[in-house]
């Protein structure tokens, strides 16, 4: 048992915190307002080596473990949740799929580019008619000689507008198969950016595959193994949501704490009023417990233990807390929180995606319960 970060992780957390406070945080409002991919933030974080964290060393990465990557994503999310989301989507969702299930050739070509931040990845599973119910997808990949022809539409795909490669789940007859499709493949068409409540910098759009030709080399994890591959990748997706959500919870706490300590009412700081102090205290308590649940789930994943229910419960806890904390933050800031100039309202809007992304909390609760009830 050991509840602390390693010295190396702690060092990274500290230096990245300082970096983000100086470089990422100040741009968060602008990222939100423009509702565009935060290219400047991406570039700067790539220079810091963030995109390379989980990529194996032989492919130009740093070969760090999951806990290190989640620590970094949480820190970024404390300053700009949208930026954290685009980084995590590329590094942990698409990147892990390529790293674990890609052919040697695919890995050799893509991973070094992802590590440098020169290429951006996306993961496309949801469709207009299939979200949590993954096996209801309608996108097909039909085998024609040596090639596969992809047809269908994916919706709400983060990074769709900027991605160089898209990892996607298709139906192949009675089975499912995961493909990595290069963005330049003919027939891939990206729709208009979705106008969203929050997380506006993590731009999402629909992607349609109109007779896109791909080869065997584009298959991840073997023909017909799509559901198992995607189940494994979903653990990473959910852990990435945990990390972003926990960052949001801490951001909400920091904003509320700062306001409570500096704003005075009835001749004393808000923090000296018991109800406010208790509310801010509860924000810390819930964020802290959710953070431990994330590391616990990540540790199980890293060690190949059965982890899906633990990942699910960490995700539910983290996202519920993000929403709760963003709400508490608004209460502490009162009118000041409503202002478009306040980070509180952005945090409040950003938090909402967390209970939806990576499987809604409703579906994740079912995963937890089915495991408990052996259904």
């Amino acid at each position, binding site marked *: *048992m050991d*509840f602390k970060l390693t010295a190396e992780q702690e060092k990274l957390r500290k230096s990245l915190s300082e970096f983000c406070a100086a470089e990422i945080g100040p741009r968060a409002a602008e990222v939100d307002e423009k509702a565009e991919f935060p290219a400047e933030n991406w570039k700067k974080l790539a220079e810091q080596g963030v995109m390379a964290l989980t990529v194996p060393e032989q492919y130009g990465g740093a070969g760090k473990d999951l806990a290190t990557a989640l620590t970094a994503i949480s820190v970024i999310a404390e300053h700009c949740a949208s930026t954290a989301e685009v980084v995590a989507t590329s590094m942990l969702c698409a990147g892990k799929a390529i790293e674990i299930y890609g052919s040697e050739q695919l890995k050799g070509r893509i991973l070094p580019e992802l590590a440098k931040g020169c290429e951006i990845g996306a993961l496309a599973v949801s469709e207009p008619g299939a979200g949590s119910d993954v096996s209801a997808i309608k996108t097909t990949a039909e085998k024609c000689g040596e090639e596969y022809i992809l047809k269908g539409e994916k919706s709400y795909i983060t990074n769709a507008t900027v991605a160089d490669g898209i990892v996607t789940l298709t139906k192949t007859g009675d089975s499912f198969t995961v493909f990595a499709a290069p963005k330049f493949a003919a027939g891939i068409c990206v729709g208009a950016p979705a106008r969203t409540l929050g997380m506006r910098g993590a731009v999402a759009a629909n992607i349609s595959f109109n007779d896109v030709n791909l080869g065997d080399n584009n298959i991840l994890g073997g023909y017909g193994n799509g559901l198992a591959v995607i189940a494994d990748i979903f653990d990473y997706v959910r852990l990435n949501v945990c990390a972003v959500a926990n960052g949001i919870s801490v951001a909400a706490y920091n904003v509320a704490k700062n306001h409570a*300590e500096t704003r*005075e009412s009835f001749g004393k700081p808000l923090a000296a009023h018991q109800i406010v*102090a*208790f509310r801010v205290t509860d924000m810390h*308590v819930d964020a802290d*417990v959710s953070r*431990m649940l994330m590391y616990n789930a990540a540790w199980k994943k890293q060690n190949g233990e059965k982890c899906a229910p633990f990942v699910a419960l960490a995700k539910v806890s983290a996202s519920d807390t993000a929403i709760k904390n963003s709400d508490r933050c608004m209460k502490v800031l009162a009118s000041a929180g409503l202002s478009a100039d306040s980070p509180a309202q952005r945090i409040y809007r950003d938090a909402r995606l967390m209970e939806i992304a990576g499987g809604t909390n409703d579906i994740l609760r079912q995963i937890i319960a089915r495991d408990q009830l*052996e259904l």
Partner: protein
Amino acid sequence: MEFSINEEQQAFMKSVFNFSKNEIYPLMEEFEKKGEFCWEAWKKMGEFGMMALPFPEEYGGANAGVLTTCLGMEALTRGGASGGLTLSWGAHTILCGVPIWLIGNEEQKKKYLPGIASGEKLGGFGLTEPNAGSDAASVQTTAVKKGDKYILNGTKMFITNGPIASQFVVIAVTDKKAGHFGISAFIVDADAPGFSIGKELDKMGNRTSTTSELIFEDCEVPAANLLGPEGMGFVVVGKTILEYERSCLLAAGLGGMENTLDESIKYAKERVQFNRPIAQFQAIQEKIANMKIAVEGARMALYRVAWMKDNNIPAMLEACLAKLFMSEVGLKVADDGVQIHGGYGYMREYPVERNYRDVKLGTIGAGTSEVQRQVIGKMLLKTKKKGAK
């Protein structure tokens, strides 16, 4: 980070769980109904070594460490030991035994610890008074030194094991003017002249532990029974036991939550309504999921405190956090457990009914939730005006 429990600890938990399920649980219903302490269960726990867990071997202890002690208590409650029995264990082992172990001099340790570690000399702890609960420093019981004795006067309230303990660690004022630093700790034997037990208190839950007032009327305590330096009792005892109290004592709370979850899962799978087990209904599944999330969160908070204590890392904030989080989510878990059981959950023969009543003490005992928030908030927030010192 590393979240594993080693094989030895896993085996230990399993053996405690089986012991509790087979030897302790069958005794609980009868004593719960009577609202009586179960000496038979206590003796068995002593023989099994549950009271010896945290203490050094030279005093009859098992030197198990905080985490292993927690795991043991978690397994004991999960196996079906009642909240009352584990509360008695806590008052005895943690509140009476630990301060004697960590603050006591060699003579005191030799005299008291072996009996505590074996469970033969039941212990208790007297801090709370009719007018001093959360505001613990406002105790009014006095201790005046007279020759080689201290004379104690006052009343202690809500004292677990009060009617049956052999010795108590008691907090009393030795110098009223010195505030926090005028409060001392004593070991008071139950046969001390001038010591008596007030009326036994009838409680909502934890009914297999007995609770009463302690009355001190010119009670004579040998000066040799002063625990720690005079005037430092409140500070030293507080510091020593608080983190233990908010780890080892909480472990039984975690086990109780797990017991409720286990029972609810079992019931949901067996109970058929509308032609199917109720486990197949989404509303029941959601409750089960929420219970599991609460259990795992509580486990993290608890194990962290235990790990910190085993590694000599100060854990006051984390201990208060664990206590606050666990007791608050515990209420909801207990409530969901009864709700899943429906009418049967309202009946005394079902463990979830007992758990529901037992769990409420969590947000009150050892500092209310409000006091925990107060302590944590003080550590987190600056409450002084700008420029003020």
